[in-house]
């Protein structure tokens, strides 16, 4: 049997997004947004949209691939894939699923996309309008434990307690995202810088999360094109090669009513070793990281579980200067991410990771060769991936 790996076999050949909007402000429907992003990604790759033969998404995206294929007039549809799980945990996994399809010969050109117009549907951060609940929700909703922030605050509270981590560590993550958004004209928070004082004065959403620890909710769409490494070289001068990807979660992570044996986790303790094993690199080789911010505490835990520092070092490492492009020790969320660019469920983070490899970020890290994405901390399954330049494959 050949070595079972995706390393170097596929690449992201094009990326695209719509304009990003505050939630409820998109002037067109969610489906139109999806089409716009896909066509933008094709244009970026220099690819005829009729070459697409597969789709991958996550988090129960509402935009059916068969309808998209019909709208685009595709000659044929060969691959249609939905990654299970909620939140942004599938962001990297959807890319990996597309990559596996291409590497395995199921399709030649797979679009990974995510479209969200929360103003046209139910918002993630508001309680659904129901009179009764059962199952897991019956154990939580009657106690006012309803929203994602409320679902994850207790995990982070426990983690901060176990490791004596100060609030300034979460604050640094928020400030880094806002700092990078000021250089990014696409960012919803472009032109709206955040200071440490404003962070400290911001209201609690749910302790230990202040307003700026929580992601935005937005309208928009993002897409990227996954093809074989050989084909990518013909399409783009600098494709971003997939070095590795992994998804999953720990033993009984989804045990009901907050009974995961390992409770204070971002769900990556078993996933990250698989990622590094496939990529053939270690944390010290990673030049730049995009780490999904549902909440800053989840980023903190994700970075620890991917081996960038230990929990005991978090107070010392998580200071703003360390997290900034171009020269910080660990440049983080260089487009502004979910906090300040756009909450496109983390697919904007994959696009940014590819732009870093292409040298096209608005907060470019010098000589970025290895670029990581961490998707959806604290949910299950989570996923992460590593992209590399031509020099790494």
């Amino acid at each position, binding site marked *: 049997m050949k070595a079972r790996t995706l390393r170097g076999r596929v690449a992201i050949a094009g990326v695209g997004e719509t304009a990003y909007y505050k939630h409820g402000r998109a002037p067109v429907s969610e489906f139109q947004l999806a089409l716009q992003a896909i066509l933008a990604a094709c244009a970026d790759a220099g690819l005829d949209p009729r070459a697409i033969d597969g789709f991958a998404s996550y988090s129960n995206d509402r935009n059916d691939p068969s309808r998209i294929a019909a709208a685009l007039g595709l000659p044929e549809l060969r691959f249609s894939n939905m990654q299970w799980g909620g939140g942004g945990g599938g962001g990297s996994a959807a890319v990996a699923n597309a990559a596996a399809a291409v590497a395995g010969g199921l399709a030649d050109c797979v679009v990974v996309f995510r479209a969200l117009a929360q103003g046209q549907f139910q918002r993630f*951060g*508001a*309680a659904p309008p*129901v*009179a*009764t*609940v*059962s*199952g*897991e*929700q*019956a*154990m*939580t*909703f*009657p*106690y*006012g*434990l*309803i*929203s994602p*922030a*409320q679902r994850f*605050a*207790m*995990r982070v*509270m*426990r983690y901060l*307690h176990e490791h004596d981590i100060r609030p300034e560590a979460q604050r640094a993550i928020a400030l880094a995202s806002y700092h990078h958004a000021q250089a990014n004209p696409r960012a919803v928070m472009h032109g709206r810088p955040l200071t440490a004082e404003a962070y400290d004065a911001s*209201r*609690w*959403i*749910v*302790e*230990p999360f202040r307003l700026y620890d929580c992601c935005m909710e937005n309208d928009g769409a993002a897409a990227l094109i996954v093809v074989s490494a050989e084909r990518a070289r013909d399409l783009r001068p600098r494709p971003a090669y997939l070095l590795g990807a992994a998804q999953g979660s720990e033993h*009984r992570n989804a*045990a*009901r*009513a*907050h*009974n995961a044996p390992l*409770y*204070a986790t971002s769900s990556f303790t078993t996933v990250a070793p698989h990622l590094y094993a496939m990529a053939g690199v270690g944390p010290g080789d990673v030049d730049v990281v995009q780490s999904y911010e549902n909440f800053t505490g989840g980023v903190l835990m994700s970075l620890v579980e991917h081996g960038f520092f230990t929990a005991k070092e978090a107070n010392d490492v998580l200071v703003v200067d360390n997290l900034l492009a171009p020269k910080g020790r660990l440049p983080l969320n260089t487009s502004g991410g979910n906090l300040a660019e756009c909450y496109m469920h983390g697919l904007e983070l994959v696009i940014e990771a590819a732009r870093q490899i292409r040298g096209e970020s608005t907060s470019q890290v010098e000589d970025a060769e290895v670029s990581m994405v961490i998707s959806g901390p604290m949910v299950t399954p989570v996923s992460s991936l590593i992209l590399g330049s031509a020099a790494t494959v």
Partner: protein
Amino acid sequence: MAPAASYLPAGLPAPVPEPDGLDAPYWAGTRRGELLVQRCERCRAWQWGPEWICHACLSPEVGWTRVDGRGIIYTWERAWHPVHPALREHGPYIVVLVELAHAGGIRMLGNLLGDPRQVVTIGAPVEAVFEPHDDAKVPFTLVQWKVI
């Protein structure tokens, strides 16, 4: 002023047993003021929340056992932002996750009764308090916690 009948205001979604009956013994137990959790009849492993088979030995013979409603605060949160219309004018409230060491370390959720602005200490001992909602369309009882 008489203490409020419930910790949180009326109007939040009401719990109902799952249609397949999995957690019905738990909800029936709370109506009687009893805390019931699962314990495998074959390997004696504790299990919470409920599931159809034992996660340790995969036996379908997962029984229900009454446990003492005492534990320690494993973690907590204080929610300020109202995500449901019923909470809009309410102010902060506390949710705790309570570990029951005498029941295999299973954890149970609830609100922490008392001052919503109180200092909360991880590791503090708490005991269960049953909060009946007799006027609900389908009457139910919540398990809450108070520091002892």
